[in-house]
Structure formats: structure tokens, C-alpha cells
């Protein structure tokens, strides 16, 4: 099978941009990735764009901005995994022999679309009774803490860790550390989750240039990072009530990715995971098989998941610290994994990692575990 390499990455700082739109942000990220790849943009022979709320032909609006109009452009929507799905579609096109050099971009201008809590799918019965996304995760948190005999303070340490990492990331929305006391004293959003345990409303974009291994070697791309696997699964309809403290969807997606990459969870050196809420990080890493079920918060307490720990999780600051412009998030995770594997992550650099994982998932409707989940494995 054709090898696929990430040869260029770029992103905007995540944050709130009242004076810019998603397409302008997407163009900034794409140009940064092209510059980082150091290629002639005319080599790009296909482009994939992931977003949730940016309307029709968002991708063409970006390629029009940056002088590469005319090439095949595909727009994808897969809730919070939209950017990750754009990366996955790009690598499928390369492996299929359709394209040699592909641009994948995630973009979102959420602050112009929403304030406060996001609801599940429009028209879904759970949203109509008043369930919000923070509410879904708050309920999972309540049950998780009860089932494993853990405290809210132990959960709050996830936010402390991720915001500390974000403070070292110039692309993060929040670059300020917080204390556990501040997390626990922040206003309640959906009990037990407080404001500092919820990812913010963010705008931003992130981009990745992928190419075949042959092309990368031919062009002498020494900093290229191999995209060893990019798996996608959708949540199954539940035929009976099941545990909400474990994620079969994350497990199944991860197993599919590990198999293609020829690795197991024990080979993973660090991971960027979808920590839309503090509890989400525990559910993700346990679903990924990186920690035993019910043990992650204890591992965080022992410092195992911080930069310098045994298995750093979300060195970028994650969604809690870096921000969460829905469609951009999955692409930004790949940007961080590539930077870490290249050794270009500055102050937040992990000590010589070889295998990094990016995990994204999103969407919720009544009777379904989740909508879309992606796991990507990148290897130096």
C-alpha cells in the first residue's frame, strides 16, 4: 500500500475573531502549511475541507483565496470529527492513487454561530427535553465518579493539566494556567462540570499537506511524518441501555487504527484526544486502551499524563486549553502530533516520541453512543 506522509502543517491561533470569517482563517492555516511544506502550491492536486456550520462550498472559498482554484475540492461534515475526516479522506485519495499531494483543512467560525452550550442534533428528542452537550458529559461524569469512587477534585485536575500545557502553546486560545481551586470555584455549567471543565466557543483553522512517500523522498522532505493509519467509525444504535462510563466506539475505532498501523496501545508515546469536557479525556484514553478503565484520574494525580510523564495526554492543551472550533479540531490535533514527532513543539516538547495518536469524536442523538469517531496514528 502507498505510504502517506504529512510534510507540512499550519494553524491559526484558536480564539475569537469577530473581524474575520472562517474562510480567511482557513486560508491562513493553508498558507502556513504550504510554507511549512516548502512546496510549490501548484503541486497540490486535491483538497478536502472539514467544517460543521460554515455552509455551502466553504472549501472552494478557501482555495479561491489562496490561488489554487480549479483543483478537485471536497467538503465534509462529520460533527466534531470533521477536520479529522478531511485528513482521512485526503489520505484515502492518496492511497487510492487518485492524488499525489493533498491539502486537508479544518475550519470553523463558531463564535458567530453560537453562544454558550451546544445542543445535540437539531430535532432530536434528547435536545428537545433540554439535554445539552455539557449535560451529556456531566451525566457521564456523575456516573463515572460514583462507579469508581472518585472525586470532583480528581476530575478537575484534567483541566489544570491541559490549561498548563496550553500556557506553553502560542496557538492556544487560553495561555494561562489555572489552579484546582479556580476550576472547582468556576461557575457550574452542568453539575458536576464547571466552566473551566468545558471547552470554549472558538474560531480557528488548521491544515495539513499530505503526499505519497515517493514524492516526499523525491523532494527530500526529511521532516516528513508517516500517517500510518486513519480510522473512522460511527456510533452504533443501542439495543439496550449500556454503560456510559466506557466508549466502545473509541475502542473499536482505535483497534481498527492500531491494526492498520501494526501497533498496539503499548507502543503509543503520547496522544491528543477529544477532551471537550474534563471527563471526556478519561473516557477517551481508557477507550483507546492507554489506561485501564477507572484508573486515568489516578494516573493524572501521579503526573503520568503531563509533559514529562509516562504517557503525556494533550500536550497541546487539548480542547480545554487550546480551544475547540469544531471542524478545525481534528486537523489541529494532527498539527500538534506532527510538531511533537518532529521535535518542534518548543516549551511543551515531549522527549523524543516515536508514535503519536490523534483521537476525535462527536455527535450525540437519542439511542446512539456517538456519531463519528476518528483515530489517526502518526509515526516518526
Amino acid at each position, binding site marked *: 500500500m502507498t505510504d502517506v506522509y504529512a510534510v507540512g502543517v499550519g494553524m491559526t491561533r484558536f480564539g475569537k475573531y469577530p473581524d474575520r470569517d472562517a474562510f480567511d482563517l482557513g486560508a491562513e492555516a493553508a498558507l502556513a502549511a504550504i510554507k511549512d511544506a516548502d512546496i510549490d502550491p501548484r503541486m497540490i492536486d486535491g483538497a478536502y475541507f472539514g467544517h460543521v456550520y460554515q455552509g455551502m462550498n466553504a472549501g472552494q472559498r478557501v482555495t479561491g483565496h489562496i490561488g489554487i482554484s480549479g483543483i478537485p475540492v471536497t467538503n465534509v461534515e462529520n460533527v466534531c470529527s470533521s477536520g479529522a475526516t478531511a485528513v482521512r479522506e485526503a489520505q484515502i485519495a492518496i492511497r487510492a492513487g487518485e492524488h499525489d499531494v493533498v491539502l486537508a483543512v479544518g475550519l470553523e467560525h463558531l463564535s458567530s454561530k453560537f453562544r454558550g452550550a451546544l445542543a445535540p442534533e437539531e430535532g432530536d428528542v434528547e435536545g428537545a*427535553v433540554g439535554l445539552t452537550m455539557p449535560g451529556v458529559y456531566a451525566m457521564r461524569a456523575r456516573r463515572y465518579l460514583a462507579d469508581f469512587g472518585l472525586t470532583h477534585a480528581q476530575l478537575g485536575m484534567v483541566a489544570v493539566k491541559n490549561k498548563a500545557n496550553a500556557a506553553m502553546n502560542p496557538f492556544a486560545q487560553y495561555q494561562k494556567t489555572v489552579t484546582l481551586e479556580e476550576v472547582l470555584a468556576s461557575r*457550574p455549567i*452542568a*453539575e458536576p462540570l464547571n466552566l473551566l471543565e468545558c471547552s470554549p466557543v472558538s474560531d480557528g483553522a488548521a491544515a495539513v499537506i499530505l503526499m505519497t512517500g515517493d514524492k516526499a523522498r523525491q523532494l527530500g522532505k526529511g521532516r516528513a511524518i508517516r500517517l500510518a493509519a486513519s480510522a473512522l467509525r460511527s456510533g*452504533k444504535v443501542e*439495543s*439496550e441501555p449500556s454503560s456510559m462510563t466506557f466508549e466502545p466506539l473509541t475502542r473499536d475505532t482505535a483497534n481498527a487504527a492500531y491494526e492498520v498501523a501494526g501497533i498496539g496501545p503499548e507502543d503509543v508515546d503520547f496522544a491528543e484526544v477529544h477532551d471537550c469536557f474534563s471527563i471526556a479525556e478519561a473516557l477517551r484514553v481508557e477507550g483507546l486502551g492507554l489506561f485501564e478503565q477507572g484508573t486515568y484520574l489516578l494516573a493524572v494525580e501521579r503526573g503520568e499524563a503531563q509533559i514529562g510523564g509516562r504517557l503525556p495526554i494533550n500536550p497541546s492543551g487539548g480542547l480545554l486549553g487550546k480551544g475547540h472550533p469544531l471542524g478545525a479540531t481534528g486537523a489541529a490535533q494532527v498539527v500538534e502530533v506532527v510538531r511533537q514527532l518532529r521535535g518542534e513543539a518548543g516549551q511543551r516538547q515531549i522527549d523524543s516520541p516515536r508514535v503519536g495518536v490523534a483521537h476525535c469524536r462527536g455527535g450525540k442523538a437519542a*439511542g446512539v453512543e456517538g456519531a463519528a469517531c476518528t483515530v489517526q496514528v502518526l509515526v516518526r
Partner: protein
Amino acid sequence: MTTTSAEMSQAGMPFVPGVLEVGPDGKGHLVGAHCPGCGASYFPARSVCSRCLRGDLERVPLGSSGTLYTYTVIHQSLPQFETPYILGYVDLDDNVRVAGQLVDVEADAVELGMRLTLQVEPLASQTLASQPLQSGEVGEGKQVLWFRFRPEAAASGPPVPPTGKPPTGKEQP
């Protein structure tokens, strides 16, 4: 037991199409799907069984009793919901999990595993902070019906007022 569309339009409109019905006795219930092949139950109703792929699922009325799996108190929500409110996932005895609001109970008295009863009732405008798409009355005195959970002992009385009459507000705590 299935309500005809004419009867339903007399009693009120479901807040989400197809998720609940009112029987001839005036009592409302959720509508699920049951697989005659493997016995799986679904809410909301589906066309094909995810477990055994049978396509002849029966639409069935769901019972009103269940056990609280987990809950939260929501402080920030969409504009049409007045906060705070308690929201839980309830495992009905029919083996389906349903999200709904809990009323007639203080937040600090809610416990995982407590028994709850589902009641179909008019969606009162006082439940809502602003005028949304849904409201307690629609057009010619028709009500929008939804459901909430109450602790088993607290739930009593006819959940839905007689057909045709507007909500009295008595149903709202």
C-alpha cells in the same frame, strides 16, 4: 391502544413528532419499537433492528416506570429553557434509556438508582424562559405534549387534562 391521528390532534401535539401518544383513556405514553425476533427494544422507534436486522419492528407503547441511571443539574442551556433544571437518563423497565427532566424533587435529594415515573403532560409556557417554536398552546387551543419524570411516590393523578381543555397549570410544580 394506538391513537389515531384524529384523536391525537384533539388531545395535543407531541413535542417531537411520533415520540409519544395519548391513549383513549387520556393517558400518554412514549412510543418505542420492539423486535419480535430478538426482543430488543428501542426509543426512539426505529425501522430495522440493529441487533438482528429484522425489518418488521412493532411500534409499542412504553411503560412509565424506570430507574435513574445518572443525572445533572443544568445551569446553562438553550434560550427556551429556564435554568436551573434537573435532567436525567432513566432506564425504563422496558429496557430502553430515556433522557428527561426530573420535577417534584430537590436536586440534593436525587439519588442514582431511585425509582421514577414518567408522565406525559402539557408543555407549559412557564417552563420556558422565552417564546420558542414550541409553546403550551398551539393554534385553536391545541396543546403541545411532552414528558417529565417524578419520584415514584409523588406521581399521581391524571397526567393529561381532558381533551380540548387548555392546561390548568396545576400540573406544573
